[in-house]
């Protein structure tokens, strides 16, 4: 009973928040609604008994990702109204809904047809966080390390792309400037 009430309440709130995110013309409203939706999604994880995932959701999304977006928005001109693509609304909505249903069917079809068994079943009498830790650091150790390397790469690329010495960065130059630089280099080599 309580679970049902919580599910429907949070389902309604999440859908509403994400709907605001994709329809509003104010970037700030979209950001705020997205942050609220992320927190509401963590409620589903708590209902489902995935406590650690819920905590990670709040920490990473509402903390890190939203802060990053807020920083990003300081660079952009977000006060003006966002213009939308002029297109047929019904085609867009219809295509999206069909695609979403297809994706979920791809997910669900193998589970319905053959009786899948748990690969790493949950252990009895152990909390979710401990359970996750045991599986993550034994069975998924290599993916975990690869994810760590990927985050490192992302961090370095973020620093390089948005770093302070932007005026010296190659990514900022126009093609003509880069060509000039190459010519200069060749001249130096020849002379």
């Amino acid at each position: 009973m309580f679970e049902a009430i919580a599910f429907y309440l949070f389902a309604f709130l999440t859908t509403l928040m994400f709907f605001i995110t994709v329809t509003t013309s104010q970037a700030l409203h979209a950001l705020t609604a997205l942050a609220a939706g992320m927190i509401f999604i963590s409620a589903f994880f708590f209902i489902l008994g995935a406590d650690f995932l819920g905590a990670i959701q709040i920490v990473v999304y509402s903390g890190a990702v939203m802060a990053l977006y807020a920083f990003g928005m300081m660079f952009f001109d977000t006060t003006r109204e966002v213009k939308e693509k002029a297109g047929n609304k019904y085609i867009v909505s219809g295509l999206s809904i069909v695609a979403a249903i297809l994706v979920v069917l791809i997910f669900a079809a193998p589970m319905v047809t053959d009786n899948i068994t748990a690969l790493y079943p949950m252990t009895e009498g152990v909390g979710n966080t401990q359970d996750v830790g045991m599986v993550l650091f034994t069975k998924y150790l290599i993916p975990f390390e690869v994810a760590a390397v990927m985050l490192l790469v992302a961090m370095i690329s973020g620093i390089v792309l948005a770093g302070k010495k932007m005026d010296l960065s190659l990514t900022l130059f126009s093609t003509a400037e880069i060509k000039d630089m190459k010519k200069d280099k060749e001249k130096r080599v020849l002379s």
Partner: protein
Amino acid sequence: MMEIGLNHYLVLSTILFAIGLIGVMRRKNLLLLFFATEILLNSVNIAFAAISHYYGDLTGQMFAFFVIAIAASEVAVGLGLLIVWHKRHNNIDLEHMSTMRG
């Protein structure tokens, strides 16, 4: 009706995924397009957690963790590229990025 099963969560995941796809298709501002992709990733996370719960299997939660890690790194790289683009062209609309059109 009162008993929440796996189908409820899958339907919710479908609805959120559809909302995210609508956002991806109709947004022109790249920053708001990124928001829509976050919605897509989150809707898939709900499906993963629900399947993990109803089948008593931890694999779904593991995948959800890796999806979150990928989302975080995607935001870092994407925002870096966006800032570079904005400093160079002074806007982040998709229309102005069609230089590769044949």
